[in-house]
């Protein structure tokens, strides 16, 4: 068993940390409060070539695996950038997986190099208000009309849609009730987010406000047939491939955020004096922080195992789900404790832990709730009857 990062991996971690720490906590606080996209950060990551970490070399990327991508995204979150930083680049670094695996050569030649160099911002359009996590119940419908599809429907919680030029859009081309299997009849597109036919409305939300989350109202959007990914009706299968890597990346983000929060809590525990001594001397403060470190470290091991399994072509669903679960809980707990350690100061934006707290809470909900992870483990790992 080998626990050491490879030379490349250590280099990635250090180099990304170096870029990310150029953007300090105040940078993120202002972008969060003002709800502005962190363009300077995004450009710095693009200039460093980091957006293409998993993109094949022939399209300008580095062709690394999910292990390296997770190390990168963890370093970004851990720098203090948190979810604002991670979400700014998240889809660029792995979200294009369906395009890479199932897209046409023309599409890949056209779009992937622009994603790698940062020119092309992208978002992921799957979830819908009426379907929730029951993805096969989506109703956004694409009707073939000559060499175009005409699409109508609604999407919700589409991160970064405001800032994106293209969208990876999941639709139905056959109704649920007309499909032999519920996973049939879904078709995936990678196409322009045409403002003439898609009304993008940002959702007011609790945190991660530098990157928008949006509702999309799609009205007679015309998509050229060549923007379809793979075959009609196979879209569900194409996105399924990306779900485990998605969970691992989110786990890495939760982990990085937890470490950022813990770092601030420890520093405050040393600096802040009450009753004539540093508050970190109190067991009531020291123990929860020590415990959080133990939980973060344990969660990280699960994440490393999951990404290793994926990169080695082995089944990883169990570990990917567990990594998401453990990292999200450990990360949130660390952020909550960091806030507690700061007392009243923690409630002000100035100390940044309130921002971490809001962001880390997101990861117990997204991209799927902790409870759905338990459903997965209960049903598919333990073999218990499906509970929902």
């Amino acid at each position, binding site marked *: 068993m080998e626990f050491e990062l490879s030379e490349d991996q250590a280099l990635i971690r250090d180099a990304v940390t170096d870029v990310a720490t150029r953007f300090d906590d105040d940078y993120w606080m202002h972008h969060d409060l003002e709800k502005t996209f962190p363009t300077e950060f995004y450009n710095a990551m693009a200039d460093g070539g980091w957006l293409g970490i998993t993109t094949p070399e022939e399209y300008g990327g580095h062709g690394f695996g999910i292990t390296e991508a997770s190390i990168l995204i963890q370093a970004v979150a851990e720098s203090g950038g948190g979810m604002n930083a991670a979400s700014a680049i998240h889809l660029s670094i792995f979200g294009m997986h369906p395009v890479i695996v199932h897209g046409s050569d023309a599409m890949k030649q056209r779009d992937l190099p622009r994603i790698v160099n940062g020119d092309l911002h992208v978002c992921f359009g799957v979830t819908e208000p009426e379907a929730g996590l029951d993805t096969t119940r989506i109703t956004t419908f694409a009707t073939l009309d000559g060499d175009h599809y005409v699409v109508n429907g609604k999407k919700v919680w589409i991160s970064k849609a405001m800032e994106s030029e293209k969208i990876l859009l999941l639709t139905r081309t056959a109704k649920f009730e007309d499909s032999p299997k519920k996973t049939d009849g879904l078709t995936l597109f990678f196409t322009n987010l045409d403002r003439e036919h898609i009304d993008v409305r940002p959702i007011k939300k609790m945190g991660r406000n530098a990157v928008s989350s949006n509702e999309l109202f799609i009205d007679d959007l015309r998509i050229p047939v060549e923007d379809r990914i793979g075959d009609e009706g196979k879209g569900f299968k194409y996105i399924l491939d990306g779900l485990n890597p998605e969970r691992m990346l989110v786990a890495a983000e939760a982990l990085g955020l937890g470490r950022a929060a813990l770092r601030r809590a420890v520093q405050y525990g040393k600096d802040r004096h009450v009753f004539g001594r540093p508050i970190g001397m*109190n*067991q*009531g403060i020291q*123990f929860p922080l020590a415990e959080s470190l133990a939980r973060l470290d344990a969660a990280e091991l699960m994440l490393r195992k999951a990404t290793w399994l994926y990169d080695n072509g082995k089944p990883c669903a169990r570990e990917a789900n567990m990594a998401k679960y453990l990292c999200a809980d450990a990360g949130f707990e660390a952020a909550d404790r960091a806030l507690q350690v700061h007392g009243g100061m923690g409630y002000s934006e100035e100390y940044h832990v309130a921002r971490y707290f809001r962001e880390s809470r997101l990861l117990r909900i997204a991209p799927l709730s902790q409870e759905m992870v338990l459903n997965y483990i209960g049903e598919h790992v333990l073999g218990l009857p499906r509970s929902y």
Partner: protein
Amino acid sequence: MRWALDSEQEMFADAFGDLLDRAASADKVRRWLDDGDPSPFERLLADDGWLAVGVGEDAGGQGGGLLELALTAEQLARRAAPSSAWTSTVLALPALDPERSEAAISNGTFAAIVASANDPFDDPAGALAVSEVGGALTGSVRLVLGGDRAQLLLVPVGSRLFLIESSAPGVSIRPRALLDRSRSAADIEFDGARATRLEGDAPAILADAALRAAVLVAADSLGAATRLRELAVEYSKQRTQFGAPIGSFQAMKHAAATMLVDEEASRSLVYYAAESVDRNLAEAPLHAAAAKAQVTAAGSRAAESSLTMHGAIGYTWEHDLQLLYKRAKLDVALFGDPSRWNERIATALELVPAD
């Protein structure tokens, strides 16, 4: 609203506590448990008239209600005193008619409802599998709390209730040892045993007994938790490590404070639930369920926390902690664990809208 024990109730609890301090000291309790014979203590309870508490004067009792019984249970548990005969009897007495109740109390006769201590007097999987033909009972029920101590058995058969003496022909009693030696149970088998039909609707009687059991077991857990906290605090003041009493360490203080918070919340729940069940309030089933689920879970946490605060000494046979620890743990499972009672609450909440 302010709700507190009145002075009579406080005097009652103090008087019973004083009696137990003399009659059920730690060494006596240990002797009864080691001998597997709690009868000296049971005789004392019966002879001194403690079975009359919580029973109306018309039925041979001396008044008081479920609250007084809860105070009794709390005091018994504090000392890990053997109590299954008492518990099963006070749960069974309301099912008897006034004459039989009076006779049982004045003769110091212990009784038990023949139902599994795993369940809240319901019949999830045919656990109450006794049938009756021509006044003769046949069938068996496992794990009846106090079934080994009772002279009178109340046997639910469908919607009817029968009475039979445990010494009657055709009744066999197989005692079952529990991990908590301060309580005991028995598997009871009837083989054509002739019994007397009692008046009353068995399901209603059992439903009421379940609520009373929930409150009394919660009170038992509360008593054990109180003592577990007291022991932990006493020890943390005596024991020194790194040149300081371990009670001066914040982690210990916070653990003890958390136990006390749980305990106070539990006390409010138990007393209120007792009063609510006694007055037959509309929400009494929910109050009883909340008490059983919350208080026994808190008692179990108190047991863990107290053991942690004691370290290895608490793990020894010599230390009284083990008696209370097992007491609190059995209270979690007795008459249905917290999930069973939470399920009752969930059902009442109408979480899924009616069609």
